[in-house]
């Protein structure tokens, strides 16, 4: 089970993020979590929101380079070290994590990540009894 994440390819120029956020505001789409990864070569703004399909269309209509991808979002019990436990299970299976970010929602810790082997990741998550969310499950926590 995965959630839809919107990735925006952003210019390294002031005002670019605001343009994206304004589009979400106009479209009445709620931001749930977001993170910017800024490497030397490119900036990517990744967003989890209430209506990913509509968000992607709004961005593309505005001529903004964006992509939609499936990422894992697992809920964690709220105590120190829980994230380390979760990641260690995935690493132990020999799966590489491309990127990861986390946030709190309804007293739950939520870990969002993408791996180099989605199928195996889903299997490991299931076997370890971790709880992966889909779009609806995530939205119900908001």
């Amino acid at each position, binding site marked *: 089970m995965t959630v839809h994440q919107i990735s925006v390819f952003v210019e390294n120029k002031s005002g670019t993020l605001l343009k994206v956020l304004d589009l979400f505001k106009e479209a009445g789409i709620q931001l749930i979590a977001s993170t910017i990864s800024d490497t030397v070569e490119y900036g990517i703004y990744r967003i989890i929101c209430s209506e990913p399909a509509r968000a992607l269309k709004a961005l593309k209509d505005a001529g*903004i380079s964006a992509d939609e991808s499936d990422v894992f979002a697992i809920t964690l019990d709220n105590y120190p070290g829980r994230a380390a436990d979760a990641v260690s299970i995935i690493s132990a299976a020999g799966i590489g994590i491309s990127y990861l970010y986390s946030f709190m929602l309804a007293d739950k810790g939520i870990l969002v990540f993408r791996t180099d082997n989605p199928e195996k990741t889903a299997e490991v998550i299931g076997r370890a009894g971790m709880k992966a969310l889909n779009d609806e499950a995530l939205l119900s926590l908001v």
Partner: protein
Amino acid sequence: MYLHPRFETLQRSEIENLQMERLHDTLKACMNSEFYRKRFHDAGITVDDIRTLDDVTKIPFTTKQDLRDNYPFGICTVPMEKVVRLHSSSGTTGTPTVILHTKKDLEQWAEAVARCLYMVGLRSGDVFQNSSGYGMFTGGLGFQYGAERLGMLTVPAAAGNTKRQIKFITDFGTTALHAIPSYAGRLYEVMEEMGIDPRKDTKLTTLIIGAEPHSEEQRRRIEKMLGVKAYNSFGMSEMCGPGVAFECQEQNGMHIWEDYYIVEIVDPVTLEPVPDGEIGELVLTTLNREAMPLLRYRTRDLTRILPGECPCGRHHRRLDRMKGRSDDMMILKGVNIFPIQIETVLMQFPELGNEYLITLTNLDANDTMTVEVELKEFTDDYARLQSLTKEITRQLRDEILITPQVRLVPKGSIAQGEGKAVRVRDLRKTLI
């Protein structure tokens, strides 16, 4: 096969003998003009110092600025009453330049264009339509007179009004069309809208293209769309206009008529000749012009001589596609680099868009080139973006011998305003 077999099939030594003979006459005529007399005097040479073709390098270059400084009639070498026509550049980048023609000049020009058109297989009986602008622009009348001289029914359709252009093509049974490459694409689009299939509903077989940089892929695409053979051509108003160099049916480089011109390719910085096969600035000396001969005229166009013989039997050397303008050249770590080299590499990647920007900096006294290029379709896959960046970098290094910083940027972020696209930003500071 040849319209002028006597000139077209000359051996190299015969071409050179003819050139020397015509150069001698040209130089003598040049001394009728105050401009050239002063030039030779200032350079400390006389006509008698030019005894062989190698001596041509002793003659000072003529530039566009010279034409401007002597606007309008300053370089004329015949009495003005012998001049029957003039053509002028638009003057958008400064004072316009004027080229004068005698009756004989116009005849020789028409012969050159006719020779080119005959070479690609056009004959009396063909219907030739010209979509060039007429008037001061040389592509209009230049092709008109050449095509008529060949005995073709010649349609001066002129530029624009695409639907009317297509109506002429179908109504008059046009078999050959002259159009710039981008307009050929436009014609096809409108034909499609009108429900016309150029392959079935028209008699088009030959397309003459030129004036606009285009790639081999673009040519092949146009040929397929319109169902024609497309031939590349080169001309410039300072050299009369069309008819300077033209592809033969081999479609492999443009024969430049060496009974009309002495051809040199020089390094745009040192102005020294470069060997055949290397890119440099095209320098031409007219050998067949009365009113306004030009000696060692710097065309600012970059190209190279294609080495080797052409199977068509002509020994007039072949020019490669124009590679851009010498004004665009960059020097980085002592290496000469042209934007077109970078563009050619970038355009081979289907993942990339059309816009790019080259930035030169010299932080830490080290010349650095950054190439920003727009990504056509963004996918959030870091590994793929990275390997694409690496591959672009590798191919650029192979081409320009310097490793640039390649940055993929979102589409729309390298916005181009109207007019000529800005491809290079040089932010280097002079270091003391």
